[in-house]
């Protein structure tokens, strides 16, 4: 039992002019919160380990004469397409599922500011992770080519890298959207896997048997139209597909979710 007393005298009730909490500080706090939990730590560590494993696997199994940077970059990027959306989800849902929102939203009684800080840090972490993946891929390409005895082929242009960045960013936003919409960690993660793994199968089957759906798919299947970003040669129609399906799957749910987040009680 401690005998220490609270030394500081309680301040008198005279009004003190205080500075509002700066937004940059909120972002710093949100960044800290993404990594200081066991879940956050293992997500990012697991993502990094998976990237290394993917690099080694590419060196081992890629036919040596066909090895190029694109192979490495996509292999390293695959674990991230799963890890990043989950980070986006947990960043939001833990405030509700772990009930930390009770203190977060009392220290900062403006949920909009907290959510924007979360969104910005989520995208920042996404961008840094993808940059990391591209660097690991580049190292893998150098090492792999040296082992194979070929000169490294750099077939991935800056434009393509930006498209990959956009695709992964959209995936992360999708996670974030499910987070604000469902506000429950388990529910949102299941929701994401349904979206990412189950729906494409259903839509794919539907498109294979129904012509009318095959024609429509680009407009209404966001997963389908955002996967086109990895193909590097997008037509104007592809971009229109991305915009329209993104409106349905990302923008509208995000707006609904944000509204719910502002009003929902943190129990």
């Amino acid at each position: 039992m401690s005998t220490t007393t609270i030394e500081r005298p309680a301040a008198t009730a005279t009004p003190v002019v205080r500075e509002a909490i700066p937004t940059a500080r909120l972002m710093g706090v949100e960044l800290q919160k993404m990594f200081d939990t066991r879940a956050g730590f293992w997500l990012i560590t697991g993502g990094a380990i998976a990237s290394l494993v993917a690099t080694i696997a590419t060196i081992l199994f890629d036919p040596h004469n066909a090895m190029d940077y694109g192979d490495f970059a996509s292999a390293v990027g695959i674990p991230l397409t799963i890890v990043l959306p989950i980070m986006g989800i947990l960043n939001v849902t833990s405030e509700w599922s772990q009930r930390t929102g009770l203190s977060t939203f009392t220290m900062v009684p403006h949920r909009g500011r907290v959510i924007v800080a979360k969104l910005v840090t989520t995208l920042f972490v996404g961008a840094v992770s993808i940059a990391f993946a591209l660097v690991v891929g580049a190292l893998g390409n150098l090492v792999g080519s040296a082992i194979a005895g070929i000169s490294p082929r750099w077939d991935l242009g800056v434009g393509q890298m930006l498209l990959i960045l956009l695709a992964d960013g959209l995936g992360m936003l999708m996670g974030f959207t499910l987070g604000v919409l469902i506000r429950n960690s388990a529910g949102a993660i299941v929701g994401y896997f349904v979206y990412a793994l189950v729906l494409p199968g259903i839509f794919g089957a539907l498109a294979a048997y129904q012509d009318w759906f095959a024609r429509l798919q680009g407009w209404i299947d966001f997963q389908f139209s955002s996967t086109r970003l990895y193909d590097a040669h997008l037509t104007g129609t592809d971009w229109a597909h991305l915009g329209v399906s993104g409106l349905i799957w990302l923008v509208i749910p995000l707006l609904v979710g944000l509204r719910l987040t502002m009003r929902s009680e943190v129990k």
Partner: protein
Amino acid sequence: MITIESLTKRYGTHLAVDDVTFTARTGRITGFLGPNGAGKSTSMRVMVGLTRPTSGTALIDGRRFADLPNPGLDVGVLLDASAQHAGRTGREVLSIAARTMGLPRGRVDEMLAAVGLTVDESERRVRNYSLGMRQRLGIAAALIGDPHVLILDEPANGLDPAGIRWMRDMLRGYADRGGTVLLSSHLLHEIEVVADDIVVIGNGRIVAQGTKEELLAAAGTLVRARDLPALATALTHAGIANNLGGDTLRTDASPETVGDVALRAGVALTELRAADGAGLEEMFLELTAASQRDGHASAEGQAA
């Protein structure tokens, strides 16, 4: 100072808080007493801006909580000690609070020492904390910004007797230095030993409020005697209203008056004393019983 005015919160058809008005004064500990589900937690959530009131206002030093630029520096809040990320260490929890409020890092260690959490304990994850340790951590988080107002919901839950004593002394010192404390409890005794002012709430409504002395003084006198009915008759003859219940008699008259009447009536008293808080206790028991009749499960749900 916390000023609550005509605060009402309705969930569908359920009135969780019904026209509540009270003030928690500077330099005093205000006890917010009521059975589980009476509306204490909901009122406190409205005070700190987590729940929108249906009508009415809750102001801290004349300002809405949400209008405080950096609330942690003015108001220390502990609503639920279990509401912490299980996968985060106690130290991290405090570090996040200190960082959000813009406090130096050293403040975290100061607060850990102040609430009696060791360095080793502070590096454990909250998942492995006992409820008592979580309460200490919660108190540390509430005090870290050196606020002058404290809002604590059931802070004594899960503390061992020494911990309760520690908390009581801490709050006393805090109020004596000019701080404002509002703490809730569903246990009369807990409030009675620490509070200066008491606000009693039941089914969302305030049923009694005042200084502790006022509420306890209202209780009158408690008497036991060999021939209680004879004493009751003598008191009635003397024009003193009384209430005969079982083997005790209660009246609003002072013990002195009751003693005089008994002497003149020739009734031997076996006990004569001021009914300390008995009135408060009875009222509180009635409230508790009433809310349990209403369905304990739903009452518990509201408290959460």
